[in-house]
């Protein structure tokens, strides 16, 4: 499918101008500031950025699972064409676990320690498919098989603590798949796992996504993971989307100075034994308490100029975009 065909088909998820504000002792935290993106059928979009950039908060906002006191505002949030921004919690709780699968970082907190694996898997199915309750058990066995868990029938009667971290995350993935979702939102699904297990779980997730034709929204801090699995990359900084592009184009030439800075920071960016220091991003992330005006990255940016003090819109660079006054000028020079 070409990029134009993709954009013409109805997206699975469309987010427009989404904001999240959280109350804090010192004022209001603007955790998410005007985030917009689309996710299409069969597509993997990776939202990348460092802690506090608003990537997890955006996922929670879409799912209507924000912490108490948080306020969500948006131009629109639609799922398969349905307005889920104004749908209310009742409708969202129908969608979560059914059309929308969720996978979070720590499988132990996603699973109830006092219920068996089987009870938890079947419960999801019975809740969302009340007239097909009888199929729940077979469905659970089937999904455990799909996620590569050996002896699935015996596993049904085990408790989460009896499984390793990797197996637990497979169970969480099986649970997300119980009702044949259209979309999966996965927030750092492998961060809590050992590296060799991380690779296995990621590969499983991508295989399943392809097998079931899912749309996958993957939140990750890991650029290497994003480069390998994403169709498109969304980079967030200080609550905003600062760059969005197709994966190959993004990694070939990131257009936002923050994105370039992040890549330069990776130890793998430095040839071994050269002894040269790693590139760094000077300074720290600005406080998100109160309104931020102008480019949020300008204090740390090697290319900042007076124009950066005014608000910078996402610039359309033809199939990609970046929130930088210099974006789009590189080609003119080259």
């Amino acid at each position: 499918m070409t990029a134009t065909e993709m954009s013409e088909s109805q997206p699975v998820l469309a987010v427009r101008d989404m904001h999240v504000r959280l109350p804090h002792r010192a004022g209001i935290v603007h955790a998410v500031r005007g985030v917009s993106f689309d996710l299409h059928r069969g597509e993997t979009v990776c939202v990348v950025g460092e802690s506090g950039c608003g990537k997890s908060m955006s996922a929670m906002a879409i799912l209507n699972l924000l912490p108490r006191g948080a306020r969500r505002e948006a131009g629109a949030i639609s799922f398969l064409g349905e307005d889920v921004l104004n749908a209310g919690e009742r409708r969202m709780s129908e969608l979560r676990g059914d059309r929308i699968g969720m996978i979070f970082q720590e499988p132990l907190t996603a699973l109830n320690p006092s219920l068996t694996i089987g009870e938890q898997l079947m419960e999801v199915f019975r809740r969302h498919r009340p007239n097909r309750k009888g199929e729940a058990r077979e469905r659970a066995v089937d999904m455990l098989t799909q996620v590569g868990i050996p002896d699935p029938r015996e596993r049904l009667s085990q408790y989460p603590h009896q499984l390793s971290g990797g197996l637990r995350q497979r169970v969480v993935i099986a649970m997300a798949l119980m009702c044949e979702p259209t979309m999966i939102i996965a927030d750092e699904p492998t961060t809590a796992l050992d590296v060799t297990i991380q690779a296995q779980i990621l590969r499983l997730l991508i295989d399943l996504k392809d097998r079931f034709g899912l749309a996958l929204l993957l939140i990750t801090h890991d650029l290497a993971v994003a480069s390998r699995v994403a169709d498109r990359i969304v980079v967030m900084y200080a609550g905003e989307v600062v760059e969005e592009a197709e994966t190959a184009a993004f990694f070939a030439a990131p257009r936002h100075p923050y994105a370039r800075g992040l890549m330069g920071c990776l130890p793998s960016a430095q040839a071994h034994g050269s002894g040269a220091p790693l590139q760094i991003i000077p300074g720290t992330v600005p406080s998100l308490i109160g309104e931020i005006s102008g480019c949020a990255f300008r204090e740390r940016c090697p290319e900042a100029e007076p124009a950066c003090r005014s608000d910078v819109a996402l610039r359309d660079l033809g199939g990609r975009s970046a929130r930088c006054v210099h974006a789009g000028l590189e080609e003119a020079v080259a």
Partner: protein
Amino acid sequence: MSAKPSVLSVRHVSKTYRLTAGMMAPVRQINAVNDVSLDLREGEVLGLIGESGCGKSTLSRLLLGLEAPSAGDVFLNGRPISSLSRKEIARVLQPVFQDPYSSLNPRETVEQAVSRPLQVHGIGDRAAIRRKVAETIDAVGLPRRALASYPSQLSGGQRQRVAIARALILEPRILICDEPTSALDVSVQAQILNLLSELRRSANISLILISHNLQVVQFLADRVAVMYVGKIIEEGPAAQILRAPAQAYTRRLLASALDIAPGKGIPLLDNEVAAVA
């Protein structure tokens, strides 16, 4: 081979824990560290890599003298660590831990935290301590105004710099860094890695860098030891081990350390079909 003397030697060290599940249950033995021998030479960075449960944290506690080995000996500058007092060890060997959020006392200012080791060791008068703290704070790249701050007022990267300053204040010869950047964002990780690399050059400090992150190890380490189920299964120059590992487990570890490779997907690891974990 380097002719530099060994500052820390580990000789056939084992640590066994006994687990009892209940009165009637059989006693099980866990060989957390199993016959490990290692040498850290002067001015060298030795990377110790392995996954959770491989025994690398137990080994670091043995190296720090925080626990006694069940068998074998650890030698610090040729003297058995068991014959040295805590203070004697601390003058030569200092730890830097993973989590700068829990390794600092929230009620102490940066100045108090960093000067504490000097007071404990009774080194210097007030003015000398002041001067030394200021120098050390400069050396780790913290602004002097940070001295009056509490940990809660600092970012994760700044806290890790405070932890490193506290470790450096006694001018130790050896730092044992246990996952020093794994709680930090990559942009902050880069700053801390640069700092460690600079310290090793400017102060000729030897480092043991314990990490599961191969890229971090690759950036800093001269030599690498790979630990698996309590044993060192492979050891050698970093370039050699990370380019052409001899052991299947090391190859597997290397294959799962992903680099940027757009569209390449996640590689299938050896034995993956057999071992679902």
